[in-house]
């Protein structure tokens, strides 16, 4: 039976991802524990620093923070890890015919799986014990995550192939993320940003991709989510088009440079 290229990529990505998960969690829970420990520690430290020391005044700050921080950690870690996906697997790519997208997909699904588990385990209790209590908006959280998942995939696949041609991409990304952690409203609301600087936030895709998810967790259920979601999805689509065009241009040259 002849199957389409897309179906083949999805099948192979699934097989590769399962093996990757098995490899990571083999015999020890250390890999899994770290997946949870990393956001928990980040959340703990930032809660203390921003709430107790810097005394940021935001209602229900812990819920506000977790709604921005956990997706930020997912995006920054996934994108940083994706940068080396193709270069670190150059042996496989050179050994036999394998669409490079399989490696990018596998790495991405692996991180997405970890993110969804971490979200359930960390965010769940904070929602339950928050000052405002669970809101009906929470049921829209999976829908609100969709642009973030699409947009993050687009950036991850873009940096994966970029790193084949520019080997310092990981270095630049680390620098970039350490800057953008402060330039993206994660631990502070956008209302804190003076009006004359808001244009900069409007140009920041990370803010738009995270915003609908945080809104779903933090705000009462309302139709106000829809414009945020549409804006986020427009960003995700735009990033996907740029990434797809770059892949199309560079895919053939990949085997020379890798």
């Amino acid at each position, binding site marked *: 039976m002849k199957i389409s290229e897309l179906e083949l990529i999805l099948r192979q990505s699934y097989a590769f991802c399962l093996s990757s998960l098995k490899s990571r969690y083999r015999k020890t829970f250390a890999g899994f524990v770290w997946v949870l420990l990393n956001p928990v520690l980040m959340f703990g430290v930032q809660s203390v620093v921003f709430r107790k020391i810097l005394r940021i005044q935001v209602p229900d700050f812990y819920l506000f923070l977790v709604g921005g921080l956990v997706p930020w950690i997912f995006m920054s870690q996934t994108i940083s890890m994706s940068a080396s996906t193709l270069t670190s697997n150059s042996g*496989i790519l050179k050994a036999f015919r394998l669409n490079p997208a399989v490696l990018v997909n596998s790495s991405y699904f692996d991180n997405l799986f970890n993110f969804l588990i971490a979200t359930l385990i960390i965010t769940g209790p904070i929602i339950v014990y928050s000052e405002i209590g669970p809101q009906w908006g929470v049921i829209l959280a999976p829908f609100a995550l969709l642009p973030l998942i699409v947009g993050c995939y687009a950036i991850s696949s873009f940096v994966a192939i970029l790193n084949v041609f520019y*080997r310092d*991409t990981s270095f630049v990304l680390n620098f970039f993320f350490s800057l953008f952690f402060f330039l993206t409203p994660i631990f502070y609301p956008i209302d804190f940003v003076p009006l004359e600087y808001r244009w900069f936030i409007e140009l920041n895709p990370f803010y738009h991709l995270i915003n609908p998810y945080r809104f779903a967790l933090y705000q009462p259920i309302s139709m106000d989510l829809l414009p945020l979601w549409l804006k986020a999805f427009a960003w995700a689509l735009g990033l996907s088009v740029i990434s797809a065009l770059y892949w199309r241009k560079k895919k*053939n040259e990949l085997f020379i440079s890798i």
Partner: protein
Amino acid sequence: MNYSSQSEVILSAKDIYFDYQLSLYQHSGLRDSFINMLRNPWDFLLKKPDALPVLRGISFDLHKGDRLGLLGLNGAGKTTLCRILSGMMTPSTGTITCPGNVEAIFDVATGIMPELTGRENAYLLARLFYQTRDISTEIVEEALEFSELSHFLDAPFKTYSKGMQARLVLSLISSSPSNVLILDEVFDGADLFFREKIAKRMVKKIQDSNAVIFVSHGPEQVLELCNRVLVLKNGVIEFDGPPQEAIQFYIQSGGSRSFGNL
């Protein structure tokens, strides 16, 4: 000189050209590019990188039953041609027509997941290498038995020597016949004892496959396995004919160095 049989065409390459951009050899970083852009913005935006022609007008038909050897010095374009034929890369211009699958292997000492066992790697490789075909458990298990790695099969792949890795991969890729099979210097990784054993099995696989393209630096293997040989030089087919004549042509045209003492 051109040579072809009268049987059914399995794969057809028409006027294949392929150029490398020379800039791709220079692994400059994003930071270098940023500085270069500031220094010479017009060059950065408008200057086209120089191109290195690798394949220049390659045309041939692969017929059912062809055991095609590819000979050529390093840099002649053999691996690039094989990668294009296998679908890994697309030519700058020209077309490849092949209604069936093309399966190709370029390196047999590659572990996919070093942390996983040899057995687990074999099952994953079967799914990735054989692409659209479903390879049964029996076929993989038979290949594992053939590899004679016995209790090592359940040890992590990262503990294998290069020879053991080659045994596993060669056993697997020789387990099921292909429509078109491309083998690029794949026997070089195996140890001497296993090389003889796998050669017999590979001969059977080659006989059962519709067509095979075989790249090797060893004249004995070319003579044993091939019934037709292309000699490539500087990206052009210089000879297309029977193996014995091809080897003579190759030696006379300066290719004897890669054959050692012939």
